[in-house]
């Protein structure tokens, strides 16, 4: 009786263990990736088809990926990291966690999208995502969203939760966060991550997102959603997505091959297919490219050093915590 009783737990454990046991081939690499799940799945499949090297993927927000790496610090397993924030590359480089590598396929990647130990997978930009059915005039610049037609109709992702939004705030803070004070006076809501800011705009509860990640909205528009992506006339910030090889990787050659693959024609085409800008300037995409945008340059070292002050200035201006 008792044995049957105890055996139950063991059987259950065994069943679960057998669910999806990961392959343990020699060459296998582990990739942690923030951002488009379908992109990293396509890339992993394409890479394995080409090289026969299996890839295990863990996908999450930049925050969750980082928390996992932090908690794993005593016994790290990740070989390649793709972050949605360039800040990660800078920080990991300073910690001495990265393996320097320059891919032969990175020749056509512009200099500002690569360092000795990081290279962009692709680039997204922040934009105004506007619902044309909202009955509001089409905005052309950030400041339009602080005007009366947009009273109580604007959402914005929380800069504390998204690196790109933070850089946008840093770029637009101006004198004493005046723009954000105006937006706050106009009833803008700051809440949640990127997707959380978009849904109310699609349904019509709000008219526009201030600082939407462009590729998600472009994808929505392609599926027939009533959403237009507008790049403001005064300029915006871009968010390159760095790929990094961690120096504890036991398969550095496979990891390098993976970076090469993402930067190949095939890999970059996959990047363009999810409406991100390819890192290579010679790959076509069905969307505005870096050269088409007015980009406000952000001194990342300086603004990230002042992250706390900028966030508290922003929160004071927008009535947040």
């Amino acid at each position, binding site marked *: *009786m*008792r044995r049957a009783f105890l055996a*139950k*737990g063991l059987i*259950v*454990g065994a*069943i*679960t*263990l057998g*669910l*999806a*046991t*990961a392959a343990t081939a020699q060459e296998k690499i582990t990739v942690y990736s923030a951002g488009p*799940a*379908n992109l990293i*799945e396509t890339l992993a499949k394409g890479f394995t088809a080409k090289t026969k090297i299996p890839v295990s*993927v*863990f996908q*999450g927000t*930049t*925050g*969750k990926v*980082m*928390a*996992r790496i*932090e*908690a*794993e*610090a*005593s*016994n790290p*397993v990740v070989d390649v990291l793709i972050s949605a*924030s360039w800040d*990660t590359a800078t*920080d990991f480089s300073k910690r001495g966690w990265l393996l320097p590598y320059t891919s032969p396929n990175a020749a056509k990647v512009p200099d500002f999208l690569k360092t000795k130990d990081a290279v962009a997978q692709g680039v997204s930009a922040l934009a105004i995502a506007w619902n044309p059915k909202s009955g509001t005039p089409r905005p052309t610049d950030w400041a339009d969203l602080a005007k009366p037609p947009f009273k109580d109709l604007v959402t914005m992702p929380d800069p*504390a*939760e998204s690196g790109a939004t933070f850089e946008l705030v840093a770029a637009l803070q101006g004198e004493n966060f005046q723009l954000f004070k105006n937006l706050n006076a106009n009833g803008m*809501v700051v*809440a*949640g*991550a990127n*997707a*959380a800011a*978009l*849904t*109310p705009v*699609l*349904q*019509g*509860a709000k008219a526009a997102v201030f600082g939407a990640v462009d590729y*998600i*909205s472009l*994808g*929505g528009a392609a*599926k*027939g*959603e*009533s959403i237009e992506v507008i790049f403001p006339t005064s300029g915006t910030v871009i968010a390159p997505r760095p790929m990094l090889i961690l120096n504890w990787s036991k398969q550095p050659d496979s990891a390098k091959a993976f970076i090469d693959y993402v930067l190949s024609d095939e890999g970059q085409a996959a990047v363009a297919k999810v409406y991100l800008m390819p890192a290579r300037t010679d790959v076509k995409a069905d969307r505005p490219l870096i050269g088409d945008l007015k980009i406000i340059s952000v001194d990342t070292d300086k603004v990230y050093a002042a992250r706390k002050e900028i966030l508290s200035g922003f929160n004071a201006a927008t*009535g947040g*915590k």
Partner: protein
Amino acid sequence: MISGGRADQGFVLTTVAGLLVVVALPLAFVLLQAIFPNFGSGSLAAPFSALVEAFSDSKLLGLTLNTITLGVVVVALSSLIAIPLGVIRALFRVPLASLWDVLLLVPFMIPPYIAALAWIMTLQPRGYLFQIAGFDLGKLLFSFWGVAIVMTLNVFPAIYFAVSRTVGAIGNRLTDAARVAGATPWRAFLRVTLPLSAPGIVASLLIVFAMTIEEYGTPAALGARAGFDVLVTAIDTRVSDWPIDLSGASALSLVLVALSLSAFGLQLWLLSSRSYETVGGRSADTTRHALGAWTLPVILLFAVVTLLSTIAPLFAILATAFSRTISGGLALSNLGVDNFLAMAEGASGGVEALRNSLLLGLATALATGVLGATSAYFVVRTKLKGRQVLDALTVLPNAIPGVVVAVGLILAWNQPWWPASPYNTPLILLLAYCCILLPYPVRYANAAFRQVGESLEMAARVSGAKPIVTFTRVLLPLIAPSLIAAMLIVFAIASRELVASLLLAPVGMQTIATFIWRQFDQGSVQLGMAMSAVTIGVTTLISLAFALLSRKVDRTA
């Protein structure tokens, strides 16, 4: 043959070992991380610095008060709805009783973050309510009361089922005796039925309080807009925002643990030194009284509650799942099965995620059921030394946010010195779910054991049965209804657990919740809702099948 004494010893040791692995180990590592900020990288430098910093934070008091207020308000609102409904259901012949039971089971199957999103899409300006009725309730939704009401609608069935079951077990026999002795019906209820059903009711209140203070989805989705922050959202910020602050998160978790232990202490104090034995040798009288003139009002009451708690969120989920685009709204031309087709074709591994989660849910229900029943037995039925420690150990996880349990599990199992580790296998998710959900079977079994008279056990012992036999042949069948109910809740919650899964899912593996969350994150709300609808349907059907099956077994026994 194993002698009785040794069999008992093995029984105790196995239970204790199970609790140590499932609960104590990850929590110990959380505590170590709270004390040693660099513990994750193997250093013991700067001890207590994170704790000092967390406890000297001026916002801590506000966060704690917000958390307590929310917990108390949700428990109060839930009791207000659930206790009258549960009592009526248990003591009277309610028309369509089984239908109401099934409908009130559904809120358990709706993941809280999905329910919150469904309410946002229903009540915000231009939402579904506006599209149907021409007005919206956005102001109410994005306020403290919005958070409290949405959470209440999600958790009150826990109290409803506990009340209807415990009151039902007492039946009308004792109150009828009181009536014969001259008591009014109301007095008989207040002095006899209510006190006797106290263990079950109090246990369910405690569970709801703990569920509320630990819940992340709703406060994150609604509270942020209302400027209402609680401990869990503050903890998640520390784990998600770069630079990651694992120690700060662990330190704040200790505050939640203290809150939960206080509630647990309160329960012990409330129930101490009284006897609640109602299950004797005779079977309970199950005749229910007729409602008479109250029939219609009671039906209306059940209808309104199920409309709000079940039908409304289900409608929003289905409406979104069947929409081609969100911006198209509730128009016939915008409806279609595209999202379900995409899922059936295996888009992004949806089917695989469903299978993974259902298997994990089943495994978690079985494992926590066994561990929960045995540990509750030792606590209530034996005079083992240290049994209170066992009891406390089984409530602790209730207070710890899933994300912190996840961090604890990574810290515990990703140490290089383990010869083998469940980390990066599905087993780590099983451990996480067991840890987070163990309190349910334990609390329900605990309350049920308290109602079983000791005479039955004595009779078995006198007849020569060993404790293990008494447990499996006499006690287990008697507490089975409670235990099965708890295991169904565990199954439902485990199969869609989000917060721990996001961090712990082994590479290359998806669960239902991580699948839904990815779709939301990529702007495919409709595909996420289609998966939610399928999940709610499947988990509800499986739970019903189990419930019917166990009822049959119960009758034939």
